[in-house]
């Protein structure tokens, strides 16, 4: 490893960190929306109003203003993974616990949610 290489990698890492914090990787929004709207996957429109989604249900709150309401994406991940942990009476399916969505899919959906 050369000194120059290390610096380059460091710079790249920093850039990615900043990018991750401020930007959604290209294509992620489309993927996330696709997963969220897919009836076999997130199926989020069944209960949530989401920009760009037709005929939403209303059992859950509208998913808007998400970055402001959920600045920490870990909270969204937890909610999607298993909301019963926080609210035993919830009707939100535990997407991770019941193997509807995997970790990667949840991450991609959260990327999408944070653009709403």
């Amino acid at each position, binding site marked *: 490893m050369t000194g120059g290489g290390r610096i380059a990698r460091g710079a790249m890492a920093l850039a990615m960190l900043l990018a991750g914090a401020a930007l959604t990787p290209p294509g992620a929004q489309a993927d996330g929306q696709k997963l969220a709207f897919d009836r076999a996957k997130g199926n989020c429109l*069944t209960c949530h109003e989401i920009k760009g989604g037709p005929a939403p249900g*209303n059992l859950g709150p509208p998913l808007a203003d998400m970055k402001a309401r959920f600045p920490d994406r870990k909270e969204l991940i937890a909610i999607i993974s298993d909301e019963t942990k926080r609210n035993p009476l919830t*009707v939100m399916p535990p997407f991770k616990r019941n*193997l509807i969505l995997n970790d990667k899919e949840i991450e991609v959906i959260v990327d999408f949610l944070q653009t709403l």
Partner: protein
Amino acid sequence: MLRQIFVAAVFVLGTAQPLLADNAVDPNADFKAFREYFTKRFPKVPLNDFVNGPYSMDEGLRNQWKSIEEFPPYEFAVEHGKERFAKPFKNGKTLGDCFPNKGIGIRQNYPYFDTKSGEVITLELALNQCLEANGEKPLDYSSQDMAALTAYMAFTSRGKPFDIKIPNDPRALAAYRSGEQYFYTRRGQLNFSCASCHVQNPGGHIRTEVLAPALGILNAMPIYRSTWENMGTITRRFRTCNSQVRGVPLPGQDVLYRNVEYYLSYMGNGLPISGPSARP
């Protein structure tokens, strides 16, 4: 395989606080709590209107329903059921011969607890028991024929209040409690109990569908569903609900389904039979 796992892990977490009085089985107290929950939550809905399910919850849907009822889509089923009911078996008897009052105006008494067999007898089960006792082939519980028969019988009872009895027999109380527990237990990959939709979210929209309140939900059965473009028995509805929460449907008239029907029908006591009905 995965589905079996979800169903097998029957769901520790409760859903809506069961509308129970306390640990002893007290159907009367449950009945009061259940009724009060819905009437308090929907003070503007006349009590008898709850049997109209989603129409009692949504004005727009009710207007659509009024148009549909001008040419009731279940009429053909009632006609067919009436014919079938009177048609003699090979041995010369008819379905009417198995029932009190020839099967006319008795729907509101079903299900009942049969102390001889120690089981809940639903109308659908009673019809098949009659067929089998007379050497005839039983009907599939989700079939159009079964729906036609129960449609006809419900039609002859229209307006009569549900009159379900729970005798002071530990087996009957156990069956009632089993139905109640089934109703409040989460199941399926989606982790919903019946109560998730019909107690916690009556009037709520899942996409464009409006959820019916559990109060009086069986009074309207069997139904003609526009979505299905044909009739659905109670069995059919229970099975499709199980499938829709990505659980495993039980065989028709499984003891658990009969117990749930017993519980829900009892909760509808005093409310009029409105079946057969049309639904979206």
